[in-house]
């Protein structure tokens, strides 16, 4: 049985018994995880599908969770030694929703410790490797999820994004990564990082699978007051409506971008144009301001969120924080301290307002915005220290949408001469995932990215 490259949707339509599918992927994880280290934990034995799940929407098919998402009585480490012994005593809302819709949860995937990073190298349990070239990083922080989907160790996975942590690894690992609108998906039961930014979302082989999983994940949650009570559309049914759109392109998102990536984005733009979409030049605030906003606000929220790890209720004491967490806590404490609050936190919050307003103005003229997901392709393991502000620089093109809270999706748009994949991203209005998924689906059909070759290397 070879299920490589079969999307979740294709597996659902197949006549296969879901237990066989779970066993198949469990075997692949056990075999190839030592090479890729995409998972921090996986059951020793392939999990038995619960009978009631086999009749639900997801038919018992396997899905992996990033290890900052709580699953009942299971380890949830956030890839930090501090939480090495922690087991969640309640399930995250999205874990519960996935189970209710029939998913079999298979394994917890690696991340930068506390999701603080863009390469998955700061995991306290060791880096994840990029399936395209194991000397390279998969991107982060949801690097384990992206690498697992890319190498065909799992049909689909769930990641979380604060400012790029779904889209960057999706782009560097050649898979689809959807960051929904802030408030579209519940954060309850997920290790908190930047609470006014954090958003879980699917990492998949196809846009259709992203639509399918978003339908399960999205919705108002009694346990997360920041979720919005707004109807969840049938994203899958809406997907195939061949709407013609006006697509905005902003020059600010092409500065200092690898020329080969620029060319691939331009090729994608002409494909969209040829299929009847209108392309319009737009002007957006320079993404460098989003870096500063993120640097100040995320650190501030981190310093507050990580205060709860005092060694009393959860896991070990504060000496188990890594350097990156310590730096972020210190900077956040500084930005929030009296005398500096106005200059840093408040100023950043006001610029964040401008970033959101800027997007809202542009969305009066266009339906979606298209841009490269990252300025370069995946970096070599260990090279992150060669870059000043590595994370911020790699996430420079993903941070503005995250700051504004708007939805965005990265899909593979081709290969770089280095043999590494390249991603392009669409951004859309708040709560307009429908349009976002439609246009991404159309481009995906036009490009027909080869996702199978990389999986065949792990066979």
């Amino acid at each position: 049985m070879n299920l490589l490259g079969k999307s979740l949707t294709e597996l659902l339509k197949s006549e296969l018994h879901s237990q066989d599918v779970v066993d198949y992927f469990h075997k692949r994880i056990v075999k190839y995880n030592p090479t890729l280290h995409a998972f921090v934990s996986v059951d020793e034995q392939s999990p038995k599908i619960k009978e009631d799940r086999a009749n639900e929407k997801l038919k018992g098919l396997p899905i992996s969770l990033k290890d900052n998402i709580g699953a009942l009585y299971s380890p949830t480490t956030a890839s930090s030694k501090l939480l090495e012994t922690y087991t969640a005593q309640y399930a995250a809302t999205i874990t519960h929703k996935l189970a209710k819709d029939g998913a079999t949860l298979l394994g917890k995937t690696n991340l930068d410790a506390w999701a603080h990073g863009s390469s998955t190298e700061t995991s306290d349990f060791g880096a994840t490797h990029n399936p395209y070239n194991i000397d390279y990083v998969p991107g982060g922080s949801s690097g384990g999820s992206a690498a697992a989907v890319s190498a065909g160790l799992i049909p689909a996975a769930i990641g979380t994004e604060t400012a790029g942590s779904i889209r960057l690894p999706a782009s560097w690992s050649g898979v689809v990564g959807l960051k929904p609108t802030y408030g579209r998906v519940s954060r309850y039961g997920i290790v908190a990082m930047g609470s006014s930014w954090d958003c879980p979302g699917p990492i998949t082989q196809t846009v259709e699978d992203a639509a399918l999983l978003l339908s399960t994940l999205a919705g108002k949650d009694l346990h997360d007051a920041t979720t919005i009570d707004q109807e969840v559309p049938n994203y899958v049914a809406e997907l195939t409506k061949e709407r013609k759109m006006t697509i905005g392109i902003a020059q600010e998102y092409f500065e200092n971008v690898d020329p080969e990536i620029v060319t691939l984005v331009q090729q994608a733009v002409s494909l969209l144009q040829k299929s009847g979409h209108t392309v319009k030049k737009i002007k957006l605030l320079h993404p460098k301001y989003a870096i500063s906003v993120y640097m100040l606000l995320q650190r501030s929220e981190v310093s507050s969120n990580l205060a709860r790890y005092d060694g009393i209720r959860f896991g070990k004491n504060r000496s188990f924080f890594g350097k990156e967490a310590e730096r972020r806590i210190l900077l956040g404490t500084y930005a929030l301290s009296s005398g500096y609050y106005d200059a840093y936190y408040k100023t950043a919050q006001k610029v964040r307002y401008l970033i959101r307003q800027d997007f809202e103005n542009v969305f009066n003229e266009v339906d979606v915005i298209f841009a490269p997901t990252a300025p370069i392709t995946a970096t070599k393991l260990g090279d992150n220290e060669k870059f000043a502000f590595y994370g911020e620089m790699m996430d420079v093109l993903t941070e503005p949408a995250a700051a504004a809270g708007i939805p965005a999706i990265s899909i593979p748009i081709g290969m770089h001469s280095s043999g590494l994949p390249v991603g392009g991203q669409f951004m859309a209005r708040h709560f307009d995932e429908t349009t976002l998924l439609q246009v991404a689906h159309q481009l995906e059909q036009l490009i027909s990215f080869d996702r199978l070759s990389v999986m065949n290397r792990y066979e």
Partner: protein
Amino acid sequence: MSKLDLAEIQHLAKLSNLRITNEEALKYPEQLSESIEYVKNLEELDISSVPDSFFTTRAINLMEEDEVRTSDMLTQEQALKNAQSTKNGYFIVKRIL
């Protein structure tokens, strides 16, 4: 906007209940000062007409009934499950008075 020196880092560490080792602390002032330097670009933007409050989705005053949801409660055993140090069903903490 100022630069961060070692004394200030040590003060921030104390405020945030971190015990940073000397070797690490030596690098933090420079690393964090670089961040403080970078964010100066925010001064280039005019924020004079921006309101004081911000929330990502503009959600305001979402109210709910003040009621006990027993299904959300952890048992005493669950609540203590991840604690390093407990006694007779309580957390043991450092003396604070």
